[in-house]
């Protein structure tokens, strides 16, 4: 072609200049857009994990994420807080803010039924896991418990020792706080009303709400996030609270004026799951495989005060540490586990009713 033979012609110079300009614009543009756009090349080596923040994330970063990155070179980026709604939105829109998350027992059944999580990877190596560790396409990681905690300055002779005590505003006058979460609160309301532990499910919803009515005037606020529940207790905004054991133990370790009981603690299991349709699902399963290994899980649980759901993990835990865990035998027998399979069919209606009940 003419222009090829005469590279010095105006036209050729013009083209190359234009190309150079184009290149500069492209480079500048991608540099500006880089933090906002996940390019395929980067996606291959980064996994986005949804975390609970606070002590949870600190422990996970040190004992779960760091060893995984060291082993595989895959970077972990975290997104907080854990949001079931985001998990649902991700499956719907195909935009992934995170690939992996942990869900409690009630939520995993709900998520699995609604097709919000990936099917279990058949290549998952289960030889080092407990038989019941795989459940509803998730892998059980650790147990946490909703226990009764209180301010010692408010109740110097000891706080409520059962949910019936917690509900007893004559014996323990003062303000209360519970999690804004029907699946966890309704069984507690039934226990407070005298329903035995083994008769909780299926839940008698009318009875549960009547029971909740009794305590409602004293509930100043319903907590929605772990850190918020800690702050409410630490600053004395509430006198007694249904709160996760791990958050309470952290407060006690910080020498805050609070105490708690394992009595009638409500144990919940956390499961690792992969967000439905995630482009990084393969990596996500590799990550899950890595973080439920007994030794890593043990170190994570010690750091964050959770109870490992892989019994082999206890081989790596000192007894002094194990005593702070809800799955330690002496603690475990004082508490109860949720029957998530039986509760699940009730949860959609119960949650709807609970939301309205709170708002009235």
């Amino acid at each position, binding site marked *: 072609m003419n222009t090829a033979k005469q590279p010095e012609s105006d036209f050729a110079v013009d083209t190359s200049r234009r190309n150079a300009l184009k290149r500069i614009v492209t480079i500048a543009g991608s540099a500006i857009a880089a933090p906002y756009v996940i390019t395929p090349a980067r996606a291959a080596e980064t996994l986005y994990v949804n975390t609970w923040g606070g002590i949870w994330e600190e422990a996970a970063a040190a004992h779960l994420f760091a060893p995984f990155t060291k082993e595989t070179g895959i970077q972990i980026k975290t997104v907080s807080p854990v*949001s*079931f*709604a985001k998990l*649902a939105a991700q499956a*719907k829109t195909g935009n992934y803010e995170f690939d992996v998350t942990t869900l409690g027992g009630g939520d995993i059944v709900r998520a699995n039924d*609604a097709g919000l999580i990936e099917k279990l990877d058949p290549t998952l190596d289960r030889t080092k896991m407990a038989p019941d560790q795989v459940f509803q396409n998730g892998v059980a990681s650790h147990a946490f418990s909703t226990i009764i905690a209180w301010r010692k300055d408010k109740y110097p002779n000891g706080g409520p020792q059962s949910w019936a005590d917690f509900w007893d505003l004559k014996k323990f006058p003062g*303000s209360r706080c519970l999690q*804004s*979460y*029907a699946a966890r609160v309704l069984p507690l309301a039934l226990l407070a009303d005298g329903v035995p532990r083994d008769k909780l499910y299926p839940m008698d919803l009318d009875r549960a709400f009547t029971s909740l009515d009794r305590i409602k005037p004293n*509930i*100043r*606020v*319903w907590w929605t996030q772990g850190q918020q529940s800690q702050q409410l207790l630490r*600053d*004395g*905004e509430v006198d007694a609270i249904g709160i996760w054991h791990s958050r309470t133990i952290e407060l006690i370790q910080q020498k805050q004026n609070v105490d708690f009981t394992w009595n009638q603690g409500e144990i919940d299991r956390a499961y690792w799951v992969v967000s439905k349709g995630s482009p990084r699902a393969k990596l996500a399963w590799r990550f899950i495989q890595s973080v439920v290994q007994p030794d890593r899980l043990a170190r994570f649980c010690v750091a964050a005060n959770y109870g490992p759901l892989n019994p082999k993990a206890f081989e790596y835990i000192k007894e002094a540490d194990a005593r702070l865990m809800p799955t330690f035998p002496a603690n475990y027998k004082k508490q109860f586990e949720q029957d998530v399979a039986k509760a699940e069919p009730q949860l*959609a209606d119960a*949650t*709807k009713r609970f*939301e*309205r009940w*709170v*708002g*009235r």
Partner: protein
Amino acid sequence: MITAPAPTQAPIAASRLGRRWLPWMLLAPVLAYLAVFYLVPLAIVMVSSVTDPSLSLGHYRDFFTDSFYLQVLGRTFATSLIVTVSCLLLAYPLAYAMARRQDTLVVAMLTVVALTFWTSFLVRTYAWMVILGNRGPVAAVFRMVGWDPPPEILFTRLSSTLAMVHILMPFMVMALYSVMKKIDPALLKAAQNLGASPGRTFRHVFFPLSAPGVVNGCTMVFILCLGFYVTPVLLGSPREQMLAGLIGRQIEELLDFGEASTMAVILLLATLGLVAIYNRFVGIDKLWG
């Protein structure tokens, strides 16, 4: 639009064409941005309010036949009204003082208002949590005068209203100040010359002239308040949530995108209705001074 006089039209047809399209070309980037990031998502919300989970107007029927939702909607309007009136009562004297003075104090007051405006509202909300909390200065004062334990202020309607008034105050002050500043002082002097008392001068001269600022400020604050989310959720009573908070819970806890979309559309329509009324009686272009 500028219409050129008839005789000069023919010779400069080309530039006239340019002039006609120039405003659109200047507007194109922002229009494209709004279309992609505002109109399209908004359309999705509107569509999902009648299609999620199935094609029907059921969500709207549910909303308007359910006393719970209507109560929340009513409360949202009532709260916005209280906040607007409180803002007006507090901002009017401040704006008046600022507009009538000429000294450095005005600069100081303007700076304080602007600083409030520039501080993130999330920070301001958390600041109120600290101030009104059990370990905060307000509780300390109550304890000092022997009121122990102090009254619970946090997580009540009072605390959320207080914070919303604080957060929205700058809008009201700015709206009032910009109008008051333009009032000719000679008019007030004339009124007094004609024998009007200061009170009368204010009632018959100053206040009517400042009325556009009052209407602007009130409209802006009321509309902003209708959609408030974070502040009532964090500071307010769980029993007195506003509509935006309910929408959030609807998505977060119930995954009910259809119903949440319906509420969002209703809130939007209520807001647009107010804007339409404002436009009919005042003119939307006046909102920006």
